[in-house]
């Protein structure tokens, strides 16, 4: 097989691992801090051998396959991908009716700006399977009729940028009929990966979340219908296109985080207990922080036997978020950890919206007050739920809602700890917060 045959439509039969669709057969262990060490990128030849070429599908077929698989956005929001595409197709139809031949063509943005310090799965995916991400970008562009594609990264994501650039050059040399994806780099800040901030950054404005009343699917980059997709979502689109590889949206890339970060691909039906064991965290935790720092605490007995599968979790009122899993052992205090996380989130806001600028530091200090016992602790306990309710839904982006979800879940999952701390400032555990990447204790 030569690189040139990436372009051919008649490839060899794909040798796909029967269950791990992205091909991560073993967990990948990484240091807790710092950039993800450069992975061995699969080149075009090996990519073709594993997955075969991009199939030629009639227009509309991929939307149908993606819809049937139930694929949702793996950047964290888990919005159904097919629904986003249908909104874009509708916007294109509407604009063709009113604007005729000057109708604006859609834009597809692959979002690789992985802001969560606890997460490493996007960097691992880009650096080891760049062609799968680019396949997804090209397929999405073809399905939507987009003539412009962009890959969005954080400043400092040098290894990811290099892997994507090499793969891009390889594809151009192979003569693939797809737009040349532009690579754009945003500032290395927490909210630089938020989709309205990405669009602002691409338009030349400051890379900050913006207040949008019209969805990007109707009017995004330069007023064009725009799809912003996380890179793992794009990789899964590439799988869905190879009919049969992604019949349903089971499985996700997880980052199991503590004193190390372990990236693993869960297989359809695999439970959290199974995933944690495979990640080398054999001891049952007390609870798990699920989704990310703006995610939610879930008591381990509730989560252990649930599948690592976004649609299944949604049926239980839980979200997989960005696939971050932080197990909390009995040696650490969940409330103290929450207070530390709230301090981190308060410091990562864009400083734009009042309820976030004032609300998040208030949430952090109230939660810290709760730890100490006495009158301040009781006052904090009485006020926290009201405070959270006052912040929820009032930012331009979802950042304050993440902090609210974190604190609300902590008050419920760690209810016994709240009672002990409030009574006399004593902790049922060590009193110490868990050590987490980027978070000061």
């Amino acid at each position, binding site marked *: 097989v030569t690189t040139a045959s990436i372009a051919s439509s008649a490839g060899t039969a794909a040798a796909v691992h029967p269950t791990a669709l992205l091909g991560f057969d073993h967990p990948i262990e990484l240091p807790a801090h710092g950039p993800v060490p450069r992975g061995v990128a699969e080149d075009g030849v090996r990519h073709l051998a594993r997955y075969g070429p991009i199939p030629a599908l009639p227009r509309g077929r991929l939307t149908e396959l993606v819809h049937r698989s139930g694929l949702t956005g793996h950047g964290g929001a888990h919005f159904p991908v097919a629904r986003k595409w249908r909104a874009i197709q509708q916007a294109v139809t509407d604009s063709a009716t009113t604007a005729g031949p000057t109708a604006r063509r859609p834009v597809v943005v692959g979002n690789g700006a992985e802001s969560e310090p606890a997460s490493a799965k996007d960097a691992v995916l880009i650096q080891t399977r760049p062609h799968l991400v680019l396949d997804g970008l090209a397929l999405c562009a073809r399905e939507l009729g987009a003539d412009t594609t962009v890959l969005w990264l954080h400043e400092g994501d040098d290894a990811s940028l290099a892997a994507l650039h090499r793969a891009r050059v390889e594809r151009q040399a192979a003569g693939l009929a797809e737009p040349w994806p532009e690579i754009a780099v945003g500032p290395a800040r927490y909210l630089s990966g938020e989709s309205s901030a990405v669009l602002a950054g691409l338009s030349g404005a400051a890379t900050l*979340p913006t207040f949008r009343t019209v969805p990007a699917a109707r009017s995004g980059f330069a007023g064009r219908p725009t799809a912003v997709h996380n890179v793992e979502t794009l990789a899964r689109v590439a799988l869905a296109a190879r009919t049969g590889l992604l019949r349903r949206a089971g499985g996700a890339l997880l980052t199991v985080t503590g004193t190390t970060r372990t990236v693993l691909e869960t297989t359809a039906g695999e439970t959290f207990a199974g995933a944690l064991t495979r990640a080398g965290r054999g001891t049952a935790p007390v609870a798990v922080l699920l989704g990310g720092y703006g995610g939610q605490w879930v008591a381990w007995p509730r989560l252990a036997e649930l599948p690592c599968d976004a649609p299944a979790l949604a049926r239980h009122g839980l979200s997989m978020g960005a696939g971050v899993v932080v197990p909390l052992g009995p040696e650490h205090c969940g409330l103290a950890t929450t207070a530390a996380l709230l301090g981190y989130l308060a410091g990562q806001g864009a400083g734009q919206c*009042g309820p976030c600028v004032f609300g998040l530091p208030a949430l952090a200090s109230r939660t810290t007050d709760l730890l100490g016992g006495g009158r301040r602790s009781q006052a904090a306990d009485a006020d926290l739920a009201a405070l959270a309710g006052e912040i929820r839904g009032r*930012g331009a982006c979802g950042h304050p809602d993440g902090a609210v979800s974190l604190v609300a879940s902590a008050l419920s999952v760690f209810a016994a700890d709240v009672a002990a701390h409030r009574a006399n400032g004593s902790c049922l555990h060590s009193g110490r917060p868990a050590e987490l990447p980027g978070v000061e204790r």
Partner: protein
Amino acid sequence: VSRHGAAGPDWRLVVDPVACAGIGVCAHLAERVIRPDRWGFPIVAAEPLADGDRRALRAAGAAVRACPRRALQLHRVDRDQN
């Protein structure tokens, strides 16, 4: 047909939280539908304003026009999406 039996559309107050500076004029002008939070930033009624509720609509319109940051907007609500 709205709850008040009028034929016009319903309206929803929307705050652009990036533009809003928490000056608080809006909550003074339309206290029935806007209340300040503990830091002085407006919390708008979650329920749409019915077209028949003339007093609330007039107050909301005054608040929209008076906002020194132009951060307050009235959006039409399509009934079938409501």
